[in-house]
C-alpha cells in the first residue's frame, strides 16, 4: 500500500496544471462565467481547438488514435486538473462516446466523426433520456426502423444537453420492441442537420440550458448504427464507471477549498478578527477538508482498481453517492462561511469568492439523480458490496 504519487505522476500533474494555467486566459474565464460554465462561446471553441492541436483531448486513447494511452489513474489526474482549472471539458464525448465510435462505428463514421473529436472541433450531444425514461433508461421508446439501406427514427428525447451547439446526437433507440427491454436497444450517430430533427430549449434552475429534441421520420444511412444491432445497452453501460469517477472528481473543489481558506484567513470581521477566527468556521473547514480527503482517496482507489482490473462495482457506486452528496453539502458549508455574499452572482459589481459558490450551488442539484440516481447506486452497493438480496427492484 502506498499513498504517494510516483515521480512520473507528479510530473504529469505539473504538466497538466501548467497547461491549464496558460489555457485559462482572463478573457476565456470571463466568457465561461457568462455561460454558467457550460462552454460553447467562441473563446471556448478556440480553446478546444487549441487543445486538439496540442494533442490534449484524447489523452487516454491509445497512441495510434492520437492519444497518449493514459492509465485510468493518469486520466483521473487529468480530469482533476481540468476540473481544478474550471474548464468545461466534454468528458462524455472524449471518454465515452468517442471511444465507442472509435471502436465500434462503421468506417465511414470513423472517418467522418472521430478525427473531429480528437481535434476538438466536433460537438456531440447525448440522447439517452426521454420524457418517460430517466432512471429506468432501458424503458426508452424512441424507435429506429430499418427501411432499405436507411434507418428511420421517430420519438422524443429530453435533456439533450448542448444539442443546440452540437454537430451530432449520440442516440439510443429501440430497434426490437418485442425483446426484453435491455436487449432491444441500439445506438446511432445522427447529424443535427438531418431532416426531421428539431429541438426546443429547456431552461433549468441553475441557468444552464438544455433541450428537448424531436425526431420525425429522421433518416440516417444504415451504417449510422454503431456497434451491433440490439446490443446498445452494453455500449451505454460500458463506460459508466469512468463516467461516475469523472463526475465526483475531487478537482471540482480542491482549489476552491484552498482559495476559500485563504480568503477566510485574510478577510476581517468588524471586530478585527479574521473570518477564520470564528470557531464554527474552523469546524466547517475541518469537516470540508476531512470529507474531501476521503473523496480523494476513494477516487484514487477506484482509478487504481480500474488499472489493475480489480474494479469493484460497489466501490464505483459508493464513489458516486458519496461524492455527489458531499458536493451538495460542501457548497452549503462554504456558503455559510461566506455568508450572504454567497448569494451574489458573478456579474454583481461587488461579487467576491462567494459568486463561485452561488454558481456551484445552482448547478449542483442534478448530480444526485443524474449519472444514475443515488438510490439505484445504493441498491448496487447493498447487492454487490454487502450481498443483500434486493429483489426485483434492480431489473
Amino acid at each position, binding site marked *: 500500500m502506498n499513498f504517494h504519487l510516483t515521480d512520473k505522476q507528479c510530473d504529469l500533474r505539473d504538466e497538466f496544471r501548467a497547461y491549464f494555467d496558460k489555457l485559462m486566459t482572463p478573457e476565456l474565464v470571463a466568457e465561461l462565467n457568462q455561460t454558467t460554465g457550460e462552454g460553447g462561446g467562441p473563446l471556448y471553441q478556440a480553446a478546444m481547438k487549441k487543445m486538439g492541436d496540442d494533442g490534449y483531448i484524447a489523452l487516454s486513447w491509445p497512441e495510434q488514435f492520437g492519444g497518449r494511452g493514459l492509465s485510468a489513474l493518469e486520466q483521473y489526474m487529468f480530469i482533476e486538473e481540468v476540473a481544478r482549472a474550471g474548464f468545461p471539458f466534454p468528458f462524455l464525448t472524449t471518454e465515452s462516446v468517442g471511444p465507442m465510435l472509435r471502436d465500434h462505428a462503421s468506417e465511414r463514421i470513423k472517418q467522418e466523426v472521430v478525427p473531429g473529436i480528437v481535434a476538438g472541433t466536433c460537438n456531440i450531444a447525448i440522447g439517452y433520456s426521454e420524457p418517460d425514461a430517466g432512471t429506468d433508461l432501458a424503458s426508452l421508446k424512441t424507435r429506429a426502423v430499418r427501411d432499405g439501406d436507411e434507418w428511420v427514427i421517430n420519438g422524443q428525447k429530453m435533456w439533450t444537453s448542448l444539442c443546440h451547439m452540437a454537430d451530432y446526437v449520440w442516440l439510443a433507440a429501440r430497434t426490437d420492441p418485442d425483446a426484453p427491454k435491455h436487449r432491444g436497444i441500439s445506438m446511432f450517430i445522427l447529424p443535427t442537420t438531418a431532416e426531421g430533427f428539431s429541438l426546443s430549449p429547456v431552461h433549468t434552475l441553475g441557468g444552464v440550458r438544455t433541450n428537448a429534441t424531436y425526431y420525425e421520420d429522421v433518416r440516417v444511412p444504415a451504417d449510422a448504427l454503431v456497434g451491433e444491432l440490439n446490443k446498445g445497452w452494453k455500449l451505454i453501460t460500458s463506460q459508466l464507471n469512468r463516467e461516475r469517477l469523472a463526475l465526483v472528481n475531487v478537482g471540482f473543489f480542491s482549489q476552491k477549498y484552498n482559495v476559500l481558506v485563504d480568503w477566510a484567513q485574510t478577510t476581517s470581521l468588524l471586530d478585527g478578527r479574521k473570518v477564520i477566527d470564528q470557531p464554527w468556521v474552523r469546524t466547517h473547514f475541518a469537516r470540508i477538508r476531512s470529507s474531501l480527503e476521503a473523496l480523494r482517496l476513494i477516487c484514487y482507489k477506484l482509478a487504481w482498481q480500474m488499472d489493475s482490473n480489480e474494479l469493484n462495482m460497489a466501490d464505483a457506486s*459508493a464513489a458516486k453517492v458519496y461524492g455527489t452528496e458531499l458536493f451538495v453539502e460542501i457548497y452549503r458549508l462554504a456558503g455559510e462561511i461566506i455568508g450572504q455574499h454567497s448569494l451574489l452572482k458573478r456579474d454583481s459589481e461587488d461579487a467576491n469568492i462567494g459568486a463561485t459558490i452561488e454558481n456551484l450551488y445552482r448547478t449542483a442539484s442534478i448530480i444526485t439523480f443524474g449519472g444514475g440516481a443515488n438510490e439505484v447506486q445504493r441498491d448496487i452497493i447493498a447487492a454487490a458490496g*454487502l450481498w443483500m438480496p434486493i429483489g426485483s427492484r434492480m431489473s
Partner: protein
Amino acid sequence: MKFSLTESQSEIRQLANKILQEQVTEERLRSLDQCESGERFDRALWQQLASAGLLGIAIDEAHGGMGFDYFALTLLLEEVGRSVAAVPAVASLAGAAMVLTKYGSDTQQQQWLPAVASGESLLTVAFSEAMNSSDLTPHSMLATPADDGYILTGTKHYVPYAEHADGIIVSAKLSDNENILVVVEPGQAGVSFTAENTTTAEPQSALNLSAVNVPSSQVITQGNAADDAIQYGVNCLVTAYCSVQTGASDAALRMTAKYTSERKQFNTVIASFQAVAQRAADGYIDVECLRLCSQQAACLLSDKPADLDAQRAINDAVTMAKIWAGDTGHRISYTAQHLHGGTGVDREYPLWRFCLLLRQMEFSMGSSQQHLTDLGDRIADYSVAMS
C-alpha cells in the same frame, strides 16, 4: 498510489484473521464477560498471538520481532477489531513498543522489546489526563529533577491494562516548555491505581504517581525529542484505534447485512426493503471512508518525515482518520442495532459487544469534534491545502 497489500502483508493479515476468527468464539467471549471487573484480558489468546509471532510484527528482528513497519501492525489491529478480542494490542504494541522502537535507548529496547514480542511482558501508555485535549500534552503530571533522574507526581487517566502492565510509558511536564517521557514500573514506590470501569469492560485505570523516583535509566526522552516522541506515540495510538474501528465497523455492518438477508417480516427478507438496503449502503460508504483514511494515516506514519510539511501531512492524516473513526463508529453502531431490531441488543446475539467497542473507540483519545477543532485550528494556521 497503490491500494493492494504486498505478499508478506497479506500473509500477516491472513494469519491474524485465522487465529482471531478461530479462537475468539462466542463461547470464549461469554466466559470473558463473566470476569471480575478489571480482569477482562484474554491471556491465553495473547500467548497464542505471541507464539505465532504476531506480537512482534513491528518489532525489529534484532529484538525477536518480524521487523515490519507500523502499517503491517495495523493489519493485526483491524483483525482485533473485527473479532472484538480482549487483548492489549493497541496499548502494548501500537503505543508503547512503537515509541520505544523509535525513541528508546538500546538498553531500554533490549530490556522491553524482546519480552513484548514473546508475550512475557506487557507495556502500556499513559498520555491522557483529566481534560487534556486531543493533543495529549501533559499538564498535571509533573516532573522535577532529582539527583538521578526525576521525581514524578500526578494522575493519568484511562490507562489501558495498567494493572496488568510491567511497564507504563508516562509523559510528564518538566517546565512550561519542556516535557519528558519515561517508563514507570508498577512496583516502584509511590505508584498506585484506581480502577476505571469502561463501556467495553476493557481494564483501564487511573495511574497515581506520588513522588515516584524515576532514575535516568528509565527516561526515554526529554526536551524537543520528548515532544516529538509524545506526538509520535499519540499518532500511533490514535491510528491504532482507527484500525480497530475499521475492523469492528466492517464486522458489525456485515453481520447486519447477513441478518437482514435472513430475517423475514411481511413474508419477505427485510433486506429487500429499500430503506433497509439504503441504510446499509450508507454504512458501506462510511466504512470505506474510514478504512482509506486509516490506511493512509498508517502508511504515512511508517514513512520517515523528511521535513515539516511531511510531519504536518502525517498529523493531519491521523486527525482526519480519527474524525472518520468517530463518525463512522457512531453511525454504524446505530445502523446495526436499528436494522437488527431487538436482536441487536440481546446479549445472546454477538452484535452488542461490537456496538460497545465502537462507542469506546469513538471517544478514546479525542472525539470527532475534538479532532475537528484541532484540524480547524491547523487550517487557520497553515491551510492544510489540497494538492
